[in-house]
Structure formats: structure tokens, C-alpha cells
């Protein structure tokens, strides 16, 4: 398999297109072969396509599994005894959730890669961290929700980890004030999910009218804009609102999913999401799944060198995005940079069985 230690020595945004392509071609081919040998269902799927993993010469040609497949099938490439934890997507009650099976190696690699990527944006020294969520999210350590996994993953960047919300998702002002008092002169890291921040932090701060100063802090947030779009809050308004209410100016969005934890796509100061050398983003046309050109809107496919315990190294998301460019972002990072436009809309299906309610979540 991949020798992670040699890969880890590399800077996460160092590779130009040609080098990265060669690297991903080889690494993802090895991964495809590994899953083909170790996951029966994955093998059956590739065989049904007449796809020969030995003949992979370009990672663009590796079949992509829709993320929803992980809701319907148990897909794993390791012995069940070696499953160290199961991560689930955050679905609302009654909906199927994705189940992602992690062995120790994959889990450790996820953490290492996350550190490599995020350090490039916020520096590598650990700083006081305030999590804008409730501590109850991470209570069950064997079964992680996407939110729990995100919090635990990012916690590695923090010291004196403090939760800004209580178990009932109510803002805990005294905890926040004590925390700020303790770390008066230091830079602080805030972390949370976009909608939670808006709903349980920003709106509450606004109501309370407390003067809380986060001007020395930086915020990393992720989890998508779907719910904020419903409330007609744009990125710009989100940022402005946070600046106005508590002086927060350094705000970094990230794109990532529980199916490929670790390989996050961080937003740079130019508001571009970046793919590191450990993963890549391809946009595809819905009418034939051919790959889009730069600047063309398409369905987002993500590939990652991390998934070893489950065949999730090439996935088709239900998100829409645009590749903005490659190797030439003014921030200096190499690789593709892109923008996520949101989830693909639900389809209203005709017909007499009530599939609409059941199938489209």
C-alpha cells in the first residue's frame, strides 16, 4: 500500500498538475486494486462495468461511487474485527445514514492528513480553542456522527478546549467570557458548523447584546450552506454579521464529508477552496458524466488517497461546484481550487408510488 510516511513529508500544496497527476494515477490505482481484492461488493460492481483495475492509466477513469451508496450498502475492505470505529453522516430522524467503516490505519492517516492541510492555513502551534457546539455531540466515541468526527478531528489544533454551547445547544456566555478572560492576549481558534454558528452563536449573541471581542480569533467552519441558503444568508452576509457582532475577521470555510474525512478542502484568503496533494476534485456533467472544463458547473467528484478500510477513494457527491483554476491561485497554493454551489436540487418524481417521500432525503 501507500507509504504514508514518505507522502507526509511533502508539503500539502506543493505539486503542480503533472506531478500530482502521476502521483494520483499510481496511488489511486493501487487503492482501486486493493479494494477490488478486498471488498466483494466493490469487485462485483467493477466487474459489472467490465472495468479492469490493472489497466488504470488515469485516475479520472476510476469508477466513482455515489455517496448515497454508503447509506444502502455496507462497504468495507477490511475484516469486521479490524473496524475501529464507524462514522455516520448526519441524517435527520428516520433517514438512512451513511456508514463509513474505519480501521486504525485509516483513522490515523485521516488525522495526520488533516493536520498537514489545516496547519498550512492556521500554523502548526496549538492554540486555545473554542468549539461552537455542544459537548454532547462527541459523547459516544465508537459511533461518530459527521459533526462529532469534525469536532474531534479539529480538536487536535487546540489547547484548553472549551464548548460554547451547553448540552441543550444553549449559548454558555459565562464559559465564553471565562475562556476569553483566561486567554486575553493570545490568538484563539474557533471551530464549528456553519449553520450551528449562525443559529446558536451569532443569533444568540445578537439577542444578548453582550460585547464579546473575538477580533484576535480565527474561525474555521464547515458543513455546508444548505440551511443558510434557506434563510437567505449569503457568504458575504455571514462574514459581515460575524465581524459586526464580535469583531471576527479571519473566517475560513472548509468543504469536506464524512465519507472522506481528513481530506478537507480549506478556503484561502481569496475565498477559494483548495485540493491538497492527498485528494482531488473533478466536476462532471450530469448528462454523460464526462468531466467539465474549468469554469463549468458540474457534479462534484472527490478522490482521496486515504480510504483503505472502505472503497471510498473515488466518490460522486450530490454537490454542485465549479473548478476555478489549477496551480495558479494568487495565494500560492498549487493544485485545483474551486467553489461549491450547493446541493443538487431534489427531483419531483411523478408516478403513483409515493417514492418522493421515501427516496429523496
Amino acid at each position, binding site marked *: 500500500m501507500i507509504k504514508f510516511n514518505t507522502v507526509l513529508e511533502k508539503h500539502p500544496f506543493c505539486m503542480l498538475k503533472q506531478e500530482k497527476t502521476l502521483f494520483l494515477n499510481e496511488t489511486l490505482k493501487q487503492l482501486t486494486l486493493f479494494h477490488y481484492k478486498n471488498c466483494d461488493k466493490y469487485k462485483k460492481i467493477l466487474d459489472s462495468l*467490465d472495468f479492469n483495475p490493472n489497466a488504470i492509466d488515469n485516475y479520472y477513469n476510476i469508477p466513482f461511487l455515489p455517496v448515497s451508496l454508503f447509506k444502502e450498502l455496507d462497504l468495507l475492505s477490511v475484516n469486521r474485527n479490524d473496524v475501529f470505529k464507524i462514522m455516520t453522516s448526519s441524517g435527520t430522524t428516520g433517514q438512512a445514514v451513511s456508514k463509513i467503516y474505519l480501521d486504525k490505519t485509516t483513522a490515523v492517516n485521516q488525522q495526520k492528513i488533516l493536520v498537514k492541510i489545516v496547519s498550512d492555513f492556521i500554523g502548526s502551534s496549538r492554540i486555545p480553542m473554542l468549539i461552537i457546539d455542544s459537548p454532547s455531540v462527541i459523547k459516544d466515541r465508537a459511533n461518530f456522527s459527521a459533526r462529532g468526527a469534525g469536532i474531534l478531528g479539529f480538536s487536535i489544533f487546540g489547547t484548553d478546549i472549551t464548548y460554547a454551547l451547553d448540552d441543550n445547544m444553549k449559548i454558555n456566555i459565562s464559559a465564553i467570557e471565562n475562556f476569553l478572560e483566561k486567554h486575553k492576549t493570545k490568538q484563539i481558534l474557533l471551530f464549528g458548523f456553519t449553520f450551528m454558528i449562525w443559529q446558536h452563536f451569532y443569533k444568540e449573541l445578537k439577542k444578548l447584546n453582550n460585547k464579546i471581542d473575538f477580533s484576535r480569533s480565527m474561525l474555521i467552519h464547515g458543513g455546508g450552506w444548505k440551511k443558510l441558503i434557506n434563510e437567505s444568508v449569503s457568504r458575504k452576509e455571514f462574514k459581515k454579521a460575524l465581524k459586526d457582532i464580535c469583531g471576527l475577521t479571519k473566517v475560513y470555510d472548509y468543504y469536506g464529508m464524512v465519507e472522506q474525512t481528513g481530506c478537507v478542502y480549506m478556503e484561502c484568503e481569496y475565498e477559494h477552496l483548495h485540493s491538497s496533494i492527498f485528494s482531488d476534485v473533478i466536476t462532471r456533467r450530469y448528462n454523460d458524466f464526462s468531466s467539465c472544463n474549468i469554469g463549468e458547473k458540474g457534479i462534484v467528484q472527490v478522490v482521496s488517497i486515504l480510504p483503505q478500510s472502505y472503497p471510498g477513494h473515488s466518490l460522486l457527491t450530490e454537490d454542485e461546484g465549479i473548478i476555478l483554476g489549477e496551480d495558479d491561485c494568487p495565494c500560492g497554493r498549487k493544485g485545483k481550487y474551486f467553489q461549491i454551489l450547493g446541493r443538487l436540487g431534489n427531483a419531483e418524481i411523478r*408516478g403513483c408510488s409515493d417514492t418522493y417521500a421515501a427516496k429523496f432525503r
Partner: protein
Amino acid sequence: MQPNSDNLQYIVGNDQIVEQMLKVAPLPVFSEQSISFLNEISKLLMKETNKFSDVTTFAFWCRKSALLQQKNKYNDLSLRFGKGIAFHSTPSNVPVNFAFSLAAGLLAGNANIVRLPLKNFIQVDIICGVINKLLKSSYKNMRPYVCMLKYSSSKEISDRFSSICDSRIIWGGDKTIEGLRQSPLKIKADEIIFADRYSIAVIETDKYLQAKDKTKIAFDFYNDTYFSDQNACTSPRIIFWIGKEKERAKKEFWEQMHRQIKEKYIMQPVQAVLKLSAYYRAASEFDVKLIKNNNTSVMRVGVKKIAGNIMDFKYHSGFFFEYDINSLKEILPMCLERCQTIVYYGIDKSKFAEFLNKYRPRGVDRIVPLGKSLDFSLIWDGYDLISSLSRKITIC
């Protein structure tokens, strides 16, 4: 018990009409009165619009001459009357189905409480508008026989209508049926249910290749499938190819279909993704092959070995299993209880009668030529709606 009126919206009729229904005398089956009423509806609809093919189809179906033809199929209609009140729960995603259900209820002689789709369909507005117009003018006598209403799921309201009706007609799916079954019926009342079903197609390849009207055939098959997102009970989910020149016929058939689809079908991107997911799900379980066609609007899944449970993996929006056969008996594993319609092309009807008599499968309620799968008939899903919704009195 009075239902919560906030949630109950009458489109035709009102609470008082429901009260009157309890007392009004049922009509004879195929009564002069209902045939004439339906014929007027037909006339007004034809005048009103030609924009909706489904409305036009309904209008055409309930012309007097067409209804009399239906009537003539029955031998003895004397002393046959409606059971009383028919409570119809119609499908949420098919705009015009409710109108056929109402018509069947009227022709069988009943007063009808019709629960309409909650979603706003222009077709529903048009048909209900015409009915209201007639009930206010020349068809006041039909008033106690028609109520149409909308409500979002409410056990209280379903309880009320279920407790007063003599027949309950539930157009699927299974979830809706399960839900409504929580509401008890009168002891003597009975129920007609249209559960989730699937349908299949059989195409004779040599006859197809000889056909001169291949565009028309594609148009017909489009109506059988894509027109309702291939999600109606009547939409074929699997195509059986029978005949000598299979590969050439398939190629030609799908080329023709692609033209139709390209011209008419609007697919949302998410449908392409979910179809792919459905395919992989099937591929992880069965021996199938993806039949490549470089276009996501059709997903062709070649089946290597037929198995009954393959329909657990069916999907809609242009997702077809395909299987080659050499004799009709090979479709038998697919003719299970849930199988509703066989759509056929190029096969003699008598072959099917032979097949049915020989094997007597648990499923298959109708066998129709390609293009006719959505055509409504008073015999549906194995029920004769006229007989089921009426009663026959004997005098000796």
C-alpha cells in the same frame, strides 16, 4: 366527530353535502344520470383545454359513446346499484387519476368523497372547475354524489370518512395504504387497494425490426415509461427481448428512444446520480452488466440470470433491466404477486392467454400493447370496479 376544519379544504361540495350523502339513494350502475354528467364534463374539458394530454385522455375516455361501449360489456345490469358512499384516496403524484376514480365510482352508482392530491396541479383545478360549474347549473341533481377535498395526512379526517363509507378505494403506495388502514371501516364496508406494483415489457425483436413506424413505437414506449418518470405502477422496469435478431433490434430501439428522450425528457442532475447509485446497488447483489450508452438519461442494466427479487432493485427515471429470452415461459419468474402489467410488442395475444392458462402466475393483472400501459380501464389491478363498487339484488 368533526374533523379539524383548518386542514380540510373542500374543492367540490362541503360538509353539508357529506351529510346528504348519508341519506341519498344510490344510483343504478351506468345510470343515465351519471353517463350524461360525465359526458358533459367531457365536452367542457375538450372546450377548455388541449394543453394537457392527461386531461384530454380523460375527456376522451368519458364521452357518452365510450361509456356506453363499456356498459355493453356487462350482461346483466338490472337491479344492480351503488353500494352507497365511496371514499377515494388518490395518488399524490399523478394529476388526473382522481378523475378516473371518481368516474368509476359514479358509474357504479355511488356518492363519492374524493381525496385529491395535496400538491397543486393545474389539471386538478381544470377538472374540478368544470365539475363545479355543472353542479351549479344543469346538474344540481348530481350534487349529493360528488365531494372533492384536500387534506394533509390527518387520522381524524381519514377516520371520519372511513367510518361513513361503504367502499374505500386507496390508490397506493403501500405506505398510504398502511396509513389509511389505521382508520376503521364500517363492518360491512369493503376496500379496494392499489398497492405498489411493477410492470414488465416483452418485445419481439424480428417484428420490431420489420416495423415501419419505429418513431411511433418509441413515442408509445416513452409514454409508457418516461412520461411518468417510469414511476407509475404501469411503467415497465424490465424489457424481455424475444426473437432472433436481438442485438440489432435493441440498438435500433434505443436509438429511437434516445431521440424521444432528448426531445422531451427533462432530467434533474440528481436523478443521474441516484440512478447510478441504484445501478451499483443492483450490481453489488446480482450478476448484471452495464450496457454502455454514453448518456445518463437511459440506464440499461443487462441481467445475466433472472431472479424474482430483482425488482427489489428497480429504479425509475429511465432505469431498465434487460433480459434475452427464447420463449415466453422465461418471463414467469417476474410474474409474481406484485407484477401488474405486461406491455408487449409483436406478440400474438393468444400466446399470452396460453401462457396464463398454463402457468397461472400469482401476479399479472393486465396485458396491453406497447403504448397502452397508462390507459385506464374499469377493470384495474384485477378488480372489476363496477362490480366491486356496486351490489346486485336478487328477487326470486
